[in-house]
């Protein structure tokens, strides 16, 4: 398979003072605390990586481009700070990083303004949004405003999606997945990226009317090894088609905790290469070409 052209559509990078002053941030944002707390009972943990460390790991694994998803902070000021940080990373390493905007749609007009500011700074999308973590339903008026704005600006929106069944884990989003079908029908031109394989939504694309509604929906593979058997990659490709599945890791989250801790892209890539059964053409699309296409067209919509 062609290594070296891989795009990871789903990573998280934080300003250096966030891990350094974790207690302070955790006290301000319980969702952040839940997701990033180191637990002696769980081997899964949120690792931290600087851009330089991320690039070293990416170079080892053949990852050409790293897409930083924002964080679903409850506080809009933290969202703005995080976005400023990511903008600096994108500027410091041309061609290696791209950024999606942190926002909390509950803030309505302020969130919309932040989406527009991020677009002007060259961001490539909006997200990762966490409806469960931020406590809003998928028909929240603030969210609908944000989605309308994103559709107008041609910015894809990435949602954190949880499965309606299976084991509990920190940050599992209990938002009913049916709501994404409603969003897709309400905003047919909006490009949606449903993280973590869309909580199982690819299966419902076997229904022709669902498939039609989801023609602008992509599924990412972030954290997949913590959730599914590796056969799930092929299943998603069969169900949604290879054009709408995106490689992502949730880096620097440890997704093979029994094998390696932190700062690694390569284990998941190797697992896909050796065990997912993708054809060469499917590999090209899933591991890079699909996300490159989304990055190229991002932000080319209309201003108000």
């Amino acid at each position: 398979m062609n290594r070296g052209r891989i795009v990871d559509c789903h990573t998280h990078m934080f300003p250096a003072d966030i891990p350094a002053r974790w207690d302070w941030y955790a006290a301000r944002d319980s969702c952040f605390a839940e997701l990033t707390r180191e637990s002696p009972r769980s081997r899964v943990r949120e690792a931290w990586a600087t851009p330089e460390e991320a690039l070293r790991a990416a170079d080892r694994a053949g990852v050409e481009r790293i897409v930083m998803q924002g964080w679903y902070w409850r506080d809009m000021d933290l969202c703005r700070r995080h976005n400023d940080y990511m903008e600096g990373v994108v500027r410091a390493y041309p061609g290696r990083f791209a950024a999606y905007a942190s926002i909390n749609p509950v803030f309505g007009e302020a969130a919309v303004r932040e989406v527009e500011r991020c677009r002007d700074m060259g961001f490539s999308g909006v997200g990762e949004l966490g409806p469960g973590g931020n406590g809003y339903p998928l028909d929240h008026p603030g969210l609908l405003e944000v989605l309308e704005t994103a559709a107008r600006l041609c910015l894809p929106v990435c949602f954190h999606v949880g499965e309606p069944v299976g084991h509990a884990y920190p940050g599992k989003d209990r938002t009913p997945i049916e709501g994404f079908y409603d969003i897709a029908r309400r905003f047919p031109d909006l490009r949606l990226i449903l993280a973590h394989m869309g909580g199982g939504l690819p299966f419902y694309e076997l229904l022709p009317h669902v498939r039609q509604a989801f023609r602008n929906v992509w599924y990412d593979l972030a954290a997949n090894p913590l959730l599914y058997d590796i056969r799930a990659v092929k299943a998603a490709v069969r169900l949604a088609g290879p054009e709408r599945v995106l490689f992502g890791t949730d880096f620097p989250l440890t997704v093979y905790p029994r094998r390696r801790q932190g700062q690694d892209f390569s284990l998941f890539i190797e697992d896909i290469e050796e065990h997912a059964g993708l054809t060469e053409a499917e590999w090209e699309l899933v591991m890079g070409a699909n996300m490159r296409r989304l990055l190229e067209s991002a932000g080319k919509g209309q201003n108000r």
Partner: protein
Amino acid sequence: MKTDIHVHLIPPALSPGADVPALGPEALETLCRSGGAERAVIQGWPFRRLEDCQVQNRAILQAIRTRPDFFRGFCTTAPGAGAAALEEAAACLDAGCSGIGELDPARQGFSLEDPDFLKLCALCEDRGRVLCLHTDMTVGREGGGRAVLPADCLRLIEARPGLRLLLPHYGGGLPFYALMPEVARKLKNVWFDAAPEGCILPPQASDCARLCLGADRLLFGSHLPGPVFDAGPCWELPEEWEGIL
């Protein structure tokens, strides 16, 4: 043996209450054989009234008695009828039915926590029989009533690991979650059928479901003589099911 696990035989008097046309056993067998089936299992229709279920069951028992080389049958019952529903199901199992179903909580107005429904589960467990339970699609479903979704079914499976379940119509999407190892471990007594219905599933559905589940968990079902969108050729029933039928 190539077996169609999901066909319906609706007596003419009950036809207006079902979504599939009335067809006699002979015509139904001809139709099934034209799709490659060497044997077919008649699923009872989930009528809301016990009286209708009883008429349906008499027709099923008659068919399996007169055409024993081709037909097997499940019996239907109306859980809302309480003790009489249980009595009807037990009598049908005694008379030769292989399982209970197809039951449909949305159509028949019961929940998976309903004590009368749980007694039917216990009956199946005691007799080593299968319960066929209609499951709705989490996304994109049609029709009204309170849907029973894969997550609801999984709660039932967790509560009753010894219950043998057949979840028709791709189990409402549950097969996908068999890719989660902890879910797969819970599905040892659960099978799915590939019977299409209302919002039709295209033929690649069975390939995808097998990829998720493994080959022996997906049974062929046509939903004949209902509206069928390319159910495809019938396939062999897993060996394990020969003892069940």
